[in-house]
């Protein structure tokens, strides 16, 4: 069993369109959406018969106003400025519990957070594990880990060959959790200065966690000079180019219809995405 995680650093470069296409192209796989705070893969995979599970994680401080003597010790010591007027701002509270230990009236208790929900669904492409982190919740990394563990369990149970993971943007906590232990990271970038800047940083994270990478240059034809720069940067960082995908309106047209581009067209971008999947299979088996 092999897991490919699709990342980008910069958002909006086409991760989910490519993940959705791989979902249609690959045989024997489970799909896994690790962008838990703005999941989109389900919009292409159209899940049905989903089972929902609660995700409890972390704690929030709660002040018992009956017991509170308004001494202010908690407010003075909270490093996250999460207590004002003897009320806890749950969005700012990091759940460290410091206040609950130092309150002389023992008026502060820590309550468990319902931090989100996760789902196992059926799709025409196979099982999909996805999630929704609660608004303003922390610990997205832990939810990502749960989603990946579940995808891995399903793959083992059903004896599936591949896990296709749609990752979150950025380089922080949820990206690190999406990446650790994967067999390959496909980084989707675009030839813009922002794209190049973010590519370099996300490749740094991949090498930090020792995950091999391939780079996909999406809309490579919008700026030839930047495309060349991505090529040489990828080479310098020990990566290879998985595909050069041309700008193609069919990608958006397919998206608007809610289907993967490889099911909408056989030409243009779709053609290159199909051959990219073959290059990835090659890389995974070597």
């Amino acid at each position: 069993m092999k897991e490919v995680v699709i990342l980008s650093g910069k958002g909006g470069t086409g991760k989910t369109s490519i993940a959705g296409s791989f979902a249609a192209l690959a045989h024997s796989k489970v799909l896994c959406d690790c962008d838990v705070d703005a999941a989109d893969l389900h919009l292409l995979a159209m899940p049905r018969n989903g089972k929902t599970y609660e995700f409890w994680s972390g704690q929030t401080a709660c002040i018992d106003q009956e017991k509170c003597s308004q001494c202010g010790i908690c407010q003075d010591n909270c490093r996250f400025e999460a207590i004002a007027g003897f009320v806890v701002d749950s969005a700012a509270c990091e759940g460290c519990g410091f206040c609950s230990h130092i309150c002389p009236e023992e008026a502060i208790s820590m309550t468990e957070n319902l931090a989100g929900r996760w789902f196992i669904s059926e799709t025409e492409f196979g099982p999909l594990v996805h999630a929704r982190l609660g608004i303003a919740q922390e610990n997205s990394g832990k939810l990502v880990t749960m989603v990946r563990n579940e995808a891995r369990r399903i793959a083992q149970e059903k004896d599936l060959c591949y896990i296709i993971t749609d990752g979150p943007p950025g380089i922080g906590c949820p990206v690190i959790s999406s990446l650790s232990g994967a067999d390959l990271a496909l980084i989707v970038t675009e030839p813009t200065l922002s794209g190049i800047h973010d590519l370099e940083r996300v490749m740094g994270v991949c090498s930090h966690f020792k995950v091999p990478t391939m780079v996909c240059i999406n809309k490579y034809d919008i700026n030839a000079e930047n495309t060349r720069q991505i090529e040489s940067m990828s080479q310098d960082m020990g990566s290879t180019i998985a595909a050069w995908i041309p700008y193609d309106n069919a990608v958006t047209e397919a998206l608007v219809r809610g289907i993967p581009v490889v099911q909408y067209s056989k030409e243009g971008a779709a053609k290159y995405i199909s051959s990219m999947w073959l290059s990835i299979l090659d890389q995974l088996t070597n």
Partner: protein
Amino acid sequence: MIISIASGKGGTGKTLVATSLALSLSENHRVQLLDCDVEEPNAHIFLKPIFDKRETASIPVPVVDEEKCTHCGECSRVCVYNALAVLKTAVMTFPELCHGCGACAYLCPEKAINEELRGIGVIEIGRSGSVDFVHGVLNVGEAMAPPVIRQVKKHIFSDGISIIDASPGTSCPVIEAVKGSDYCLLVTDPTPFGLNDLALAVEAVRSLQIPCGVIINRSDVNDSQIEAYCDRENIPMLMKIPLDIEIAKLYSRGIPLVLGISEWKDRFIDLFEDICACVKQEAI
């Protein structure tokens, strides 16, 4: 006034809007741009600021004085992040897990724990023309963006207009960046992904009780679903930036829209006036 720019979906054009708004307003106002997308900051690519100050973004982590430590284990018990391990004859710290809450140092009965600062990123401060510029850059391999964002936001000035470029999503880094704003601009694209993620972003901004308006970037024939959503939710549609190869090319070269196509400047000034009207209405 603090205006933040956010979006659920990534790559919708937050930085395009933030940089163009800052440049357009800077002729007649005191303006600063704070790039709070510390995982992947991009605004500097467009504004090319000259930095004259650099700070380390850090969090305080425990250092144990082995002479005073009696290995009672209290620090390890109170640390919810598991950043301290106490053995019978030794104590160990794991700074990369520490969130810097300070509980261990405060609660150590022997006063054996001091704190030292551990760098997790840098804050750079400078100017681009007449725009004051601040951004935070999280070190590669570090997981915690919020402390870096908090440190960027310490530089918000009390007079003038502060424009905050947030990261995509709806989780803690976004909340940290947007919190305290007078208004939040949500940038989306007219795709099903854009709509899905816009609705999540609206929920997040509303949880903070900040008024918001929408900008559609790469606007084309598919806008109607976003428009219907905004109508239903009573959210003003403040601007549309068309799907245009010229705009995309400028973006790819790191050229701000208002410098590449100058007539956009007036539209961004109008946008600001619309925002002011919304904020005023909200205050009534």
